[in-house]
């Protein structure tokens, strides 16, 4: 949340609490259809169908992983060629200095290694993790987001956000509770 102009304690957004995936899905659809952009749902586990209900676009992560895997493959090939055939030619039992079959295991391993690192750290980067502080952590209620409760949060950043109308929208979704979240600085 890059902000520069806010004062000491500003509004972060409104949080609505639900307790079943079905209720959450309905709520998410309503918020999506109302046209909000800066909002999110929080669930203790990945809820099936929530991506569509929220209109989340597919992540580019697989492309990052593909490119990294390819990089790993090329690095392994070049490294083995450079080290064993070019920089320090190893002649062992008259075998060719440079033979692809003998290099395949390491090509494979480095392809997998680079891809796996990209999958994990790419996911962290896209998710902006680690982020140890977040305004939502100030809500006592929100602590159940990792146990059994589901939340919809509409952020004040959103161009459509309006204290009264946003609140009405969330109330119409019949949440278990509605909470105003401050962004304490």
């Amino acid at each position, binding site marked *: 949340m890059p902000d520069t102009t806010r004062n000491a304690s500003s509004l972060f957004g409104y949080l609505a609490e639900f307790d079943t995936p079905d209720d959450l899905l309905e709520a998410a659809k309503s918020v999506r259809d109302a046209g909000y952009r800066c909002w999110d749902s929080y669930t203790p586990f990945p809820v099936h169908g929530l991506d569509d209900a929220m209109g989340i676009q597919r992540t580019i992560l*697989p492309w990052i992983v593909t490119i990294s895997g390819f990089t790993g493959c090329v690095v392994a090939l070049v490294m083995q060629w450079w080290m064993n055939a070019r920089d320090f030619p190893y002649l062992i039992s008259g075998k060719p200095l440079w033979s692809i079959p003998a290099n395949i295991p*390491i090509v494979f391993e480095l392809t997998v290694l680079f891809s796996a690192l990209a999958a994990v750290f790419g*996911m962290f980067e896209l998710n902006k993790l680690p982020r140890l502080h977040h305004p939502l952590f100030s809500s006592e209620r929100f602590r*159940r987001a990792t146990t059994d409760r589901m939340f919809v949060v509409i952020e004040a950043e959103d161009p459509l956000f309006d204290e009264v109308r946003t609140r009405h929208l969330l109330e119409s979704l019949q949440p278990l509770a509605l909470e105003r979240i401050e962004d304490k600085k």
Partner: protein
Amino acid sequence: MSTMTSDTSIGIPSVADNLSDDPRRRAPLVVGDNNYATVTEKVCSVVERPKTPLAWYVAFGVSAALATYMVVLIGYLFWTGIGVWGNNQPVGWAFEIVNFVFWVGIGHAGTLISAILFLLRQHWRTAINRFAEAMTIFAVICAGLFPAIHVGRPWFAYWLFPIPNQMNMWPNFRSPLLWDVFAVSTYFTVSLLFWYVGLIPDLATLRDRAQTRLRSFIYGIFALGWRGSARHWHRYEVAYILLAGLATPLVLSVHSVVSFDFATSQIPGWHATIFPPYFVAGAIFSGFGMVLTLIIPCRKWYGLEEVITLRHLENMNKIILSTGMMVGLAYGTEFFIAAYSSNPIEEFTFINRALGPYAWAYWIMICCNVVVPQIFWSRAMRRSVPVMFVVSILVNVGMWFERFVIIVSSLNRDFLPSSWHYYSPTWVDVSMLIGSFGVFFTLFLLFLRFVPMVAIAELKGVMPQPASTRRNAEAPHA
């Protein structure tokens, strides 16, 4: 199997309810009257107990003492040299390499459960994958110890890696031993990442449940600020399935590469094209044995029988039965190929294996790996916890002996009868095997104490979802 044993509706499953094989009824993965909150409570309460149970201290004390003993032994080995071991020409590889292959193999079940069963949509894996992945990581740590201390001059172990050294030489990439370095270290890294990524949401659960600032701080750091955002979950799930897809060929490759250490050599008894699939099947077999050995006491002591159900154990027993027969087939195939090759040295090696000086080890292997698992054809045996515990231990023993048989019995009768030698381990060899179990159990007990042993967030995803009850609820308060 045409009769339905019970007609209980989905809403109120009884404890034994998920054992039915009737395809018309989907077996619940979590039995008992559980919901999201109770499952969280059951799993988290294990690591949240203010007082550590005495039994844990006792177990940890013993394990940590053995692990310390291992450290002392390694110091003794480095100080004196590898002559403290029993291996000598012609048996240049013995206990330490046996232990290495044994421990790497144990790890494979963890990855099979976490990655391959995930891709195959085997949802029952959810209750046991965290546990099995932890086992993988600790087993690979134990495995990695042995080649590192086996190099003779361990202060030069960095020569194994492609980093510039004082000789201005690079490692030889056409050597299977170097492939092994890459395979095992990649395997360890990917397993650790996979495990940690799976842990993040559960660490966040522990952070949010924490009663003290210290716990909240420590779990908070490791949870990386996870808050269950749907946008995060989306990328998280994509990353997770990609990791599963990457770990699947990786796990098959690791033991294949380990088997190349043998198969690409010219030693009769090692030089065999069957080795990669044979080693992978054996690895999965032994790994499931170890998962069962660990999980049976844990689910009992920690009261997780409703999450890690009898059906989970039964499924694992089926895998043990099938992989046990795969290794049995491989044992038979080896003999067939030796006979079919008409190579007298090859034939001699295999006759020597079954009837020579190490015949006792060979027949221990056959009994434990091929004969004993056949008991699981019986459904009653598959569902008997004491029986499967004993079988799982015998599988561990048998698979350790398998590696012993492959390595030592192929070496002890060299091409020249004058160099034949009966290898016996020294006290250091035996102590290091025991010590490696100490290292393994020390790490495992720490895992049980501080980390949720069941993947809670994943489990919630496979539980029946609660129906919406608040369509006409009263207006909310602000």
